[in-house]
């Protein structure tokens, strides 16, 4: 089976400005890939090309084996834009019904109810969108993107307007979708969120992929920290294999050891390093 999203040598120029300079990226089946990068890195352009909203200058982008932007590709994906707006005069149910018709979904009322329950909006089914908070609209946007059971879900900053509880709801939802076999490309600035839910992380800078891998692969060892009665002490050069020896030496020296932990770099450290420092 073809990858949910396969991008190779993707280039996009807006006049003299190069937004993407040859990006290669793949989102496999049931895989949740996080897209990171500073403003202007080309994340939104990449997402828009995948959804057929923007035409690439060169390179190839395919959704489930079909050229991005083609009818087949659009039938296979669901999309929530970073900046989105739904007609305020519509109710949540009417919006989902409209998208069901456009997506050719035969799910009917059952699908609409299920999707609204999935994003905890079942009580707001008949409420006009203009009477909803931004967070509710964002959750409705996710439900809208899921109409027609897409194989690939493309989410551009889906939690930017959500409170911590709402974010947790979305995280749980993403895990549930993964269980159901949906692949997700998640573009977010929230590193902690990406670290928690994503199988793989891709960092873009100036239209190019600068780092990619699983969170575990990206996390590098930063030494060992041991807490004794004299306080915490860090051994920057030490690794996991050195821990028993270090603890034994401390005990031999008469110290009481309360804890020992292996230090690794966080995704934030990796990100800051990849994009070139704190100022990025």
């Amino acid at each position, binding site marked *: 089976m073809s990858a949910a999203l396969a991008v190779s040598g993707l280039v996009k120029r807006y006049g003299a400005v190069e937004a993407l300079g040859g990006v290669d990226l793949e989102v496999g089946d049931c895989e949740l890939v996080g897209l990171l990068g500073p403003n202007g890195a080309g994340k939104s352009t990449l997402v828009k090309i995948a*959804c*057929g909203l923007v035409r690439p200058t060169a390179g190839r982008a395919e959704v489930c084996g079909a050229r991005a932007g083609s009818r087949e590709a659009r039938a296979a*994906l669901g999309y929530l*834009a970073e900046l*989105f707006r*739904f007609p305020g005069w519509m109710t949540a149910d009417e919006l989902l019904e409209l998208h069901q*018709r*456009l997506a050719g979904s035969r799910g009917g009322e059952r699908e609409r109810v299920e999707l609204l329950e999935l994003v905890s909006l079942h009580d707001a089914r008949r409420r006009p969108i203009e009477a909803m908070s931004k967070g509710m609209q964002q959750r409705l946007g996710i439900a809208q993107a899921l109409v027609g059971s897409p194989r690939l879900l493309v989410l551009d900053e889906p939690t930017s307007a959500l409170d911590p509880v709402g974010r947790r709801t979305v995280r749980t939802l993403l895990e549930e979708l993964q269980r159901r076999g949906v692949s997700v490309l998640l573009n977010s600035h929230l590193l902690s969120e990406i670290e928690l839910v994503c199988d793989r992380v891709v960092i873009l800078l100036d239209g190019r992929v600068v780092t990619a891998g699983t969170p575990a692969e990206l996390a590098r060892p930063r030494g060992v920290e041991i807490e004794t009665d004299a306080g915490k002490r860090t051994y920057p050069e030490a690794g996991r294999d050195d821990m028993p020896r270090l603890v034994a030496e401390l005990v031999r020296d008469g110290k009481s050891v309360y804890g020992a932990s292996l230090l690794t770099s966080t995704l934030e450290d990796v990100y800051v390093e990849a994009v070139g420092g704190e100022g990025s």
Partner: protein
Amino acid sequence: MTAIWTIAGYGLREALRRKVFVVVCFLTIAFLALYWLGARYAFHHVANVAPPEGVDARTFAGAFLFGMAMFGTLFLGVVLAIFLTLGTVRGDAERALLQPLVVRPIGRSTLLIARFLGAGAVCVPYVLILYFAAMVLTGLEGSWWPDRIVTPGLELAAGVLIVAALSLLGSVFLSSIANGIAIFMLFGAGLVAGLLGNIGHVLNSPGLVHAAKIAAWAIPFEALYQDALRAITEKTSGLTGFLLRLGPFGGAEQGGVALRLWAVAYLVLVGLVAVAGFARRDL
């Protein structure tokens, strides 16, 4: 086809829910009430007027008043068409309303055709209702009826459809405000072309008349309006007929079958350019 009707229905529901119809109905009733009042006074006094020899005062008053009502009908229809379509592509894209629809497997051309049909489904009945309402008021007050009853109304409706198509085309390239201004200026240019034709007839200047005709055919909603004006008095002759052919806001000019074919071809052409432009547009 399902997608076309879904999007067209979406446009209609938007117009209903946003109370566009309520505002339009209110303004239309006000327009018809004022028109009825004007027609009542005009026909009441027409019996006391001593017109120049060869002029039938009742026919002149009826045709002139109804000609003005036709211009009002065209103008209101054009306003409605522009407001329903001016932000269809770039305006809705800038407001982030378009992207969720475009990523669905419906095709961009389908979206444009559906929005055109939605605007047409509102504007065409509106223009026809207004046209026939003005005609009935004129007939009841002045016992004057146009020589052709249905054709002029259909030509006005076709003119409004052409404006809707031009507005959709403009929406592909221009922001909502710029597009609205551009289409209203185009409508004004049509008005000027008609007035130039009037002046050309009075001065007996074939050059000016020819220039006005070219301008009217370049924006055929004006030529259709002129043909509709001609149709309401096509059997009126003599000095009355000559004066009426000068017409209010653009003289009456025969377009015939060639104009109708050109109007259809023009619609198709505008539609093709709009579809091609939208297909290449990054959103």
